[in-house]
């Protein structure tokens, strides 16, 4: 291409600089600035901003609610990974391996909740759990299990587990498609060979499908972990706002409450730093634990 160095650099600057400035202002600066704020006692007005060193971090370690928010987050991570992966894997195998005519229909339907707003999902499920007219309690009574009916979201014990189901409901479609992509890439000849060796469907699943779609499984699990740690607070905020009695607070919803409800912005930022560190450590750890050489047959 005939163009001078100067022209090339002007064009490069045209392409990169405005975007990068916006990215720096609205993404990089806030992140680093959040780190900086975590060393201040600050209620929002500029006069009352006081440097307090590591006091917020000391407060964090002594805050009785913090360990619970961490446990709640990881509870959601673990239950979501297990629930979504088992169901998504089952549906993915069913829709690819068994020649079901209406498979595309299921695919389209199962995916839809993935693009629904969390607000809509949260409100719908709040109704499903509604103590007096909700589907869950009505269903239990219908089955003669009325004594199991309870105010699901109003119970300190049951509110958090109740949040798992909507998350699984909303998440399955995406991971099912990811796994289906993996399974359809597995060459038919492996299954034919396995069948000739007398392997039944179940053995074929364990010995052929599972190892060969391991990359997709790994990515799916990582993706669930990241999105849960970085975003579980949205469904919490919509459905319970952390209650009853803090029993569903996750790290993000607690940050929101501290910073934007109680105006402890410095302490909120400290919680944000904790979220950042925990989620980075978790992702690195997962990548280390799940490294497994690609299987080739």
């Amino acid at each position, binding site marked *: 291409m005939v163009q001078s160095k100067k022209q*090339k650099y002007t064009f490069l600057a045209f392409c990169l600089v405005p975007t990068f400035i916006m*990215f720096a202002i609205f*993404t990089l600066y806030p992140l680093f*600035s959040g780190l900086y704020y975590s060393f201040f006692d600050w209620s929002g007005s500029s006069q009352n901003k006081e440097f307090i060193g590591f006091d917020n971090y000391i407060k964090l370690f002594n805050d009785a609610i913090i360990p619970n928010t961490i446990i709640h987050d990881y509870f959601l991570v673990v239950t979501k990974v297990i629930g979504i992966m088992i169901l998504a894997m089952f549906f993915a195998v069913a829709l690819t391996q068994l020649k079901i005519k209406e498979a595309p229909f299921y695919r389209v339907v199962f995916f839809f909740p993935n693009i629904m707003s969390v607000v*809509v999902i949260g409100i719908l499920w709040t109704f499903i759990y509604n103590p007096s007219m909700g589907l869950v309690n009505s269903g239990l009574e219908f089955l003669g299990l009325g004594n199991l009916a309870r105010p699901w979201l109003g119970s300190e014990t049951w509110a958090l587990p109740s949040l798992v189901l909507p998350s699984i409901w909303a998440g399955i479609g995406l991971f099912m498609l990811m796994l289906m992509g993996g399974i359809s890439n597995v060459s038919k000849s492996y299954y034919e060979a396995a069948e000739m060796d007398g392997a039944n469907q179940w053995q074929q699943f364990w010995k052929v499908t599972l190892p060969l779609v391991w990359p997709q499984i790994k990515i799916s699990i990582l993706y669930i972990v990241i999105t849960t740690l970085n975003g579980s607070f949205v469904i919490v905020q919509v459905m319970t706002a952390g209650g009853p009695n803090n029993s569903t607070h996750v790290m993000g919803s607690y940050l929101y409450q501290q910073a934007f409800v109680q105006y402890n912005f410095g302490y909120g930022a400290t919680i*944000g730093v904790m979220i*950042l560190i925990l989620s980075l450590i978790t992702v690195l750890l997962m990548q280390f634990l799940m490294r497994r050489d690609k299987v080739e047959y």
Partner: protein
Amino acid sequence: MKRSVGHILGKTGIRIPLILWTIAVLYPIFWMFLGSFKSNAEIYRNPWGFPENFNWQNFADAWTNYNIDTSVFNSLIVTVVGSLLTLLLAVPTAYAIERINFRGSKVLFTLYVSAMMIPMVLGWIPLFFLLSDIGLLDNIYGLAIVYAVSQLPFTIFVLTSFIGTIPKSLEEAAAIDGLSPYGVLWKIITPLTMSGIITVTIMNAIQFWNEYFMALIFLQSSENYTLALAIDFISSEAQYTNAWGTLFASLVIAILPVIVLYAIFQRRISQGMTEGAIKG
């Protein structure tokens, strides 16, 4: 023979969980539509059945008495402005990263992509004060800018892989014909990447239309509420006003555009999201 009978039974057996899950997905959505036609009294009496008659009163109520008209308008602006701004910022950068050799292109790409894994919640506190300082707090255009930048990493990421599939010879030929690099970007690359641009824009638009948490933080006065906030507000008020029918009607208003987009672009949306997740 024996085998084929077992096969048929197995297939029927496998359909049971598939059908059950279909009901689990569709019934709540379907029920929301039914509820939007019921009066409040009827919702209490008969929460899960068909409405006695279809009346549109709830929609009229939501639209006029609960300011859903304003929030639909706000959501539209945020969605359209946000999606266009995302493209404006992402297309040139994606092109430069993918096609122009310069030192640091790898680093820049990694920087953008790794921002997808960073929990942005930490940044929202300073962002709140930044927006306040520049007068964009409680402003739907401010929110649109924040949305656009928040989707930049994903958009750049998807677009670079689309641009990578365009044969280089086309650009070279255009450059020999005397087209400036700006011309190449606008007249060659942009049209040839249109499929990717459409996919990523639909996904961004759905994201912006649905978004709740940033709107909750960065918008304050009710005349600036987006749909998600307005619905959340009606939902928390409904405990006292019992305006469930209105709530359902506004949920329906919020979900309809998404259903329409999904009906038209189902393949693009599911493919885009799956690939975005896999490569990310």
